[in-house]
């Protein structure tokens, strides 16, 4: 069976050092992770400040939605091929994947802040907290689950899309998929797909754990059953934030 053969292919120690005169699984995996990591870090560096600003002040939300949606319409493969012709190096590739990662994280950040009960914020302000303190000590912890949710979405998309750089001679797990396709070697192709999927799931799992720990006590975790239990006072709640599309 193809799936089992692919697993066997992955477990073959030879394939970890070299595959068809090219980098083996170990090197491709490392390069794939490194490129994804860089992209996620820069995504966070761009999207978090903007998202928190929008969420905290409520300013520029419409503008951000428009920009994020326009950016999402950019064809990643096409942009890669154009930018890598300028310089066949890592930075332009990272730039393209940052464009891919910013919309989900941006949305997570401002939606997370906007979803916080206004009365909580007003109470903090009434207690004499500065805007910065409100952001850091009230809004950020309360919005953490949604922000991390956005980060997970961005990370998942980046890890899956980094495979594209293999078209241009930059190492990634996509090399196995492309090489397998070109040589009619579906075992290798499936193995490449499995590797990408497992990597994405593992990283997503790690972030899920982080998300759990980042959730302050008393805040409902996602769609968990705890919602009913922690609802304290029948406050007039704002309607849930509607999303960009």
């Amino acid at each position, binding site marked *: 069976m193809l799936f089992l053969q692919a697993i066997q292919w992955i477990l073959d120690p030879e394939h970890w050092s070299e595959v068809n*005169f*090219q980098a083996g699984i170990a090197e491709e995996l490392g390069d794939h992770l490194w490129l994804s990591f860089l992209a996620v870090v820069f995504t966070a560096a761009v999207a978090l400040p903007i998202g928190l600003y929008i969420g905290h002040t409520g300013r520029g939300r419409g503008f951000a939605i428009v920009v994020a949606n326009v950016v999402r319409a950019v064809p990643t493969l096409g942009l890669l091929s154009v930018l890598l012709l300028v310089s066949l190096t890592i930075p332009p590739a990272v730039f393209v994947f940052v464009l891919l990662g910013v919309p989900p994280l941006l949305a997570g950040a401002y939606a997370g802040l906007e979803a916080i009960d206004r009365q909580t914020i007003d109470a903090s302000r009434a207690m004499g907290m500065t805007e910065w303190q409100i952001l850091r000590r009230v809004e950020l912890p309360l919005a953490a689950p949604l922000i991390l949710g956005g980060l*997970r979405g961005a990370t998942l998309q980046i890890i899956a899309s980094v495979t594209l750089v*293999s078209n241009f001679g930059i190492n990634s797990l996509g090399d196995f998929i492309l090489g397998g396709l070109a*040589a009619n070697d*579906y075992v290798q192709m499936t193995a490449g797909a499995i590797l990408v999927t497992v990597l994405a799931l593992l990283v997503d799992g790690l972030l899920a754990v982080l998300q759990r720990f980042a959730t302050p006590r008393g805040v409902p975790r996602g769609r968990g059953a705890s919602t009913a239990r922690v609802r304290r006072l029948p406050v007039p709640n704002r309607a849930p934030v509607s999303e960009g*599309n």
Partner: protein
Amino acid sequence: MSITRRGALGAAAVAAALTLGLAGCANSNTIGGGSSSSPASSGGATASGDAKSIVVGSANFGENEILGYIYGGALADKGYSVSYKPAIGARAAYLPALQNGEINLVPEYAGSLLSYLDKSANAKSGDAVKSGIDAKIGTLNAKALDFAEAADSDSLNVTASFAKEKGLTSIADLAKAGTVTLAANPEFATRPDGVKGLQSVYGLKNIKFKAINDGGGPTTLKALVSNQVQVADIYSTTPSIKQNKLVTLTDPKNLFASQQVVPIVSTSKATSDLESIVNGVSAKLTTADLLDLNTKASGSDKPDYQALAKAWLSEKGF
């Protein structure tokens, strides 16, 4: 994908769907004994039945697409109903599509076709290649028509400065160049006349491979001139070789076989009428034409491939 993903469930479901999608895709390709291939099958309209309706396929690089439009255009002029499946993919994708009737005609290159059909083939001259192909092509339910004079072979190229520095004129000279990285399409890694051929025919053990999936196009060129790779496989009719003063390494041991253009057509469609039309086109197709078409196609005004094919046909009096 939605903007936010609130739960682990959503993310996992997406990833799982992806896995299933990929696995399912690969599975469907192997059920048919590994012979059917998906890229061309999406259209669904297989062109069996009416002998006058032809589906022309082509490989995923410009020259071959133009050739597809040239042969298709000539047939359309003579009353055939022609549809196109351009840029299907690599040989391993479009030949199975021909075999199972999803496409009926595809412009091929003699040497590569032979080594696809017969892994142990070592015929290099035009005639030997032709008889080798004729002996094996039945397995594709297809027939090879006349070879055109036009040829477009793989060629290994280095930059002028690298050639001078290492004293390179032929592929054999690469032995003294230290470890070099070679860029080519991904299939070059497994092709018998790819890296394996460099090892067995030229005894080169110092070649590292880097797959760049653009058929010796702009990215490959970029990698070569920026010295990320030292050798690049670029088709011999590519204008960029001259434009960038690349040095094409000679191939004294004929690693790359004669690569004349040869249209291959499904047996069920190979009427004598069709053959004479296609052969008429091949008779007028020269290597200079290919270079000219490729130069135009890579020009700044980016003409449409089909328009280029039309222009060639009318220029040659079809």
